[in-house]
């Protein structure tokens, strides 16, 4: 199956950069909200350090947010920016490469002082050089102007300077003629208990707009015009938000309570932060003492009949290996969400990578196969986690869902679905009075889920090998081989439910680019552009990494060359070579950042 749907690049890209204490993420998200409110499609990509407050003004402390507004739904936040706002020299140094030739560079000239230049590693002030460049350079003393705008409020200099993010946002809003009412109202609500601070931020935002208006500091720019397709309710959603919404939706679709156990870890923690406020939606969250306890509690919750989930990232996932192997043996339905980050070990906690695929596929003792899925964008996390829950409950198995730091923190505009349009998830828990054996199997090879509290179904399960059907401890050689094969065959049963693969482009040709996870947007955009230039190239993006789609081999064989693009050194490529004995080519990027569209285009 193929689809010829095209991808237009019509958007504008705005990049805000400052120190990690400057609040550029906050202001950027407000700016993004304003764009969605104006009916625009949205792509947001943040980039920030793991340190909460790296030394102020240093390159290590730079925090950046890139926002793309588009008439349609953009697939990425863009490779390059039309506007870059740099609140200090380090922010400029870390981000100037993002700016398009001829783009608009807005600097807080008040922050370009000797000390900050030195912290950023500039021997000479770069501004003089920039004046002669092709950029539209705008120097605004945001430091002084913000201090003046909030002078009448009783704030210390430190707090007053923290309003600079909203001054900068005001400038951008003026430039793109964006309305700020919603943000002004939001500031009111947000600072309800600190009125003075709320007023100061509102004043800074207005001052930024007024400054643009009064000085006509740059050519005003136009936003794309929202296409008709953007009508109807929608929202901005990050990957972690969509994942949380997907979990609570899966619980409702299955009629189960949701139990989420987790140990704090970047970049997965936001999921718990959101869901711990959702008691009334049938959600219970538990912050465990470590990842082993988190997955242990999830196993207990699954045994007791809940939709059980644990969320983590690579190092935490490593600690869960033992218990996850047991969940395979116990054949209990549960979800492990790994929001991947750059490894090995602690690695780069806030930077994305796709290097946990092998860990998800193989990281357990013994033969312990389980389904592995990946989400391909922020909003896709919603659908991916529902699919993961469906598989877990249908086949009585733990399922691993891979997200990563890029989609967890990035955001997009999203037309949220109606629950009644989503297929319910069937759950069959064993009932009192029915014939029962803990390891008897149905046509999906699922064993019965007999929940404690059900009269007459008392049984014991455990990490020791079990006898087929009866579930008694067994060391019988033939039984062990049978059970090992049955556990593997459950994957084959799960594969039968995978929908036909949808290829973007033709189903045969010179080149197929295969990807999985967060690389979706970059690959799809690059392939679409190449096709417009007449190249015979197609794109296949995998949701199911284990089991693989049954028609995948046929799809791969339709192309002279197959390139597998991933943010690791070829883990999926090796898996596909192994499965299909095809000469696939890996294309790797492991720089702690997502593929740019240009990275993919360079390979086509």
């Amino acid at each position: 199956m193929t689809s010829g749907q095209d991808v237009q690049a019509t958007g504008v890209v705005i990049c805000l950069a400052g120190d990690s204490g400057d609040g550029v993420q906050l202001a950027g998200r407000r700016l993004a909200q304003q764009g969605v409110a104006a009916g625009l499609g949205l792509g947001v990509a943040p980039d920030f350090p793991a340190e909460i407050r790296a030394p102020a003004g240093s390159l290590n402390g730079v925090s950046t947010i890139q926002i793309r507004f588009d008439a349609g739904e953009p697939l990425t936040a863009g490779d390059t920016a039309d506007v870059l706002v740099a609140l200090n020299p380090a922010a400029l140094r870390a981000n100037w490469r993002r700016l398009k030739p001829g783009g608009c560079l807005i600097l807080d000239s008040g922050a370009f002082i000797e000390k900050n230049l030195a912290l950023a590693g500039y021997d000479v002030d770069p501004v003089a050089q920039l004046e002669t460049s092709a950029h539209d350079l705008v120097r605004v003393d945001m430091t002084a102007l913000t201090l003046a705008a909030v002078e009448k409020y009783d704030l210390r200099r430190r707090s007053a300077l923290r309003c600079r993010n909203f001054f900068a946002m005001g400038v951008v809003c003026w430039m793109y003629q964006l309305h700020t009412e919603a943000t002004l109202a939001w500031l009111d609500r947000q600072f309800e208990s600190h009125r003075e601070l709320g007023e100061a931020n509102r004043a800074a935002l207005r001052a930024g707009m007024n400054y643009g208006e009064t000085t006509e500091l740059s050519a005003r720019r136009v936003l794309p015009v929202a296409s008709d397709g953007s009508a109807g309710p929608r929202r901005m959603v990050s990957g972690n938000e969509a994942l949380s919404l997907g979990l609570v939706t899966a619980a409702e679709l299955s009629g189960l309570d949701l139990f989420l156990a987790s140990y704090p870890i970047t970049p997965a923690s936001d999921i718990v932060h959101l869901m711990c406020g959702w008691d009334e939606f049938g959600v219970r969250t538990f912050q465990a003492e470590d990842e082993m306890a988190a997955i242990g509690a999830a196993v207990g919750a699954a045994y007791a009949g809940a939709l059980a989930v644990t969320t983590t990232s690579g190092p935490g996932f490593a600690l869960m290996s033992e218990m996850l192997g047991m969940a395979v043996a116990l054949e209990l339905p549960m979800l492990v969400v790994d929001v991947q980050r750059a490894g090995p070990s602690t690695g780069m906690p806030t930077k994305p990578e796709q290097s946990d695929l092998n860990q998800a596929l193989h990281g357990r003792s013994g033969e312990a196969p389980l389904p592995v899925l990946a989400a391909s964008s922020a909003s896709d996390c919603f659908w991916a986690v529902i699919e993961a829950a469906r598989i877990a409950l249908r086949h009585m198995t733990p399922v691993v869902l891979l997200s990563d730091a890029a989609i967890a923190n990035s955001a997009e505009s999203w037309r949220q679905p109606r629950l009644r349009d989503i297929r319910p998830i069937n759950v069959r828990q064993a009932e009192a009075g029915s014939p029962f054996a803990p390891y008897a199997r149905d046509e999906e090879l699922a064993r019965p889920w007999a929940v404690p509290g059900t009269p007459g179904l008392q049984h014991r399960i455990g990490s020791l090998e079990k006898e087929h059907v009866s579930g008694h401890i067994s060391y019988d050689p033939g039984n062990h081989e049978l059970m090992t094969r049955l556990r593997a065959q459950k994957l084959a049963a799960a594969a039968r439910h995978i929908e036909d693969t949808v290829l973007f482009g033709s189903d045969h040709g010179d080149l197929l680019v295969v990807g999985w996870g967060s690389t979706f947007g970059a690959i799809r955009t690059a392939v679409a552009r190449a096709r417009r230039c007449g190249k015979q190239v197609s794109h296949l993006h995998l949701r199911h990494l284990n089991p693989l789609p049954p028609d995948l081999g046929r799809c791969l064989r339709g192309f002279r060359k197959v390139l597998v693009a991933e943010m690791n050194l070829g883990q999926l490529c090796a898996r596909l070579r192994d499965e299909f004995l095809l000469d696939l080519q890996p294309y790797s990027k492991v720089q702690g950042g997502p593929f740019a569209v240009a990275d993919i285009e360079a390979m086509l």
Partner: protein
Amino acid sequence: MTNLAEPAGVATGARDKRDYRSDQQIRWCPGCGDYAILAQFHKMLAAVGANKEDHVIVSGIGCASRFPYYVDTYGLHGVHGRAPAIATGIKAVNPSLTVWVVTGDGDALSIGVGHLIHALRRNVDIKILLLNNAVYGLTKGQASPTSFPGQVTPSSPAGVVDRSLNPLRLALTAGATFVARCVDSHGRQMRDVLIAAAEHRGAALVEIWQNCPVFNDGAFVQPSRNYLHLRPGQPLTVGGDGERALTLDQGGRLRVQRTDDADPPLLRHDVGNAALAGLLADIEGDDLPVPVGIYYRCTRPVHSDALRPEPPLRGRRSAQELLDAGRIPRAG
């Protein structure tokens, strides 16, 4: 045990200890202290009239952790050391279940000590039976955290050099709301403690001295020491004749004195007194007795109450509300 041919029964409130036995062959060594503990556990279930389906026994790895297979309730034999975490999840989802954790000194105090202390401090409503034989049995005799200094094992041929861990002191410090010690050979007293633990709402830790006849036979036999049977409100008498009892000297240390000596006054056991429980847990030395029974008991809110607030009056709200909450209406 049920099988395919036999339709499962209805709710049962059996009152005979034999009803709580599973059909599994018990695989402990002959003479193991675990047999006596299992027997008292079956009796306890009968005594409290337990509904089999409402009980879950969770264990880790080790000889003690085979326990769930031998009781006809729900059971989950987990991985090494992590039974308290599994039990926490079960209890969080269904607080009406009675959840027991059966563990050993290696399982609970070595690999699993991190989970143990957190289950206790959270006051998860689970009852933890710590079958302490001061040795690793299933892996053939290595030193455990409760092995005694000088104990010769395959992993310590020159004798254990580390101080042994005191599980009762640990439990008190971690915030357990029920702390007790039993001895495998004192059946009657063990059953009473198990019944009290079953009736306690909160995290209970019951240490049971359990003889391992194969790798650590007689480890807890201390001919020079008497047992002190802890009875609420009663003097802390030592030995059977009632002529001696514990008291506090002027330095605040426990010592034994004759009961007819009124100065200083005799101590009486107060299960709600954490300081006294601490002194009793810390007792060591040949001149002091071994306290057995309930050291400490108190009430605190349990973990599942905190996890599960009062159910909302309107019933469960739909996820659709959350999906729509961030909805941004089309401007203009």
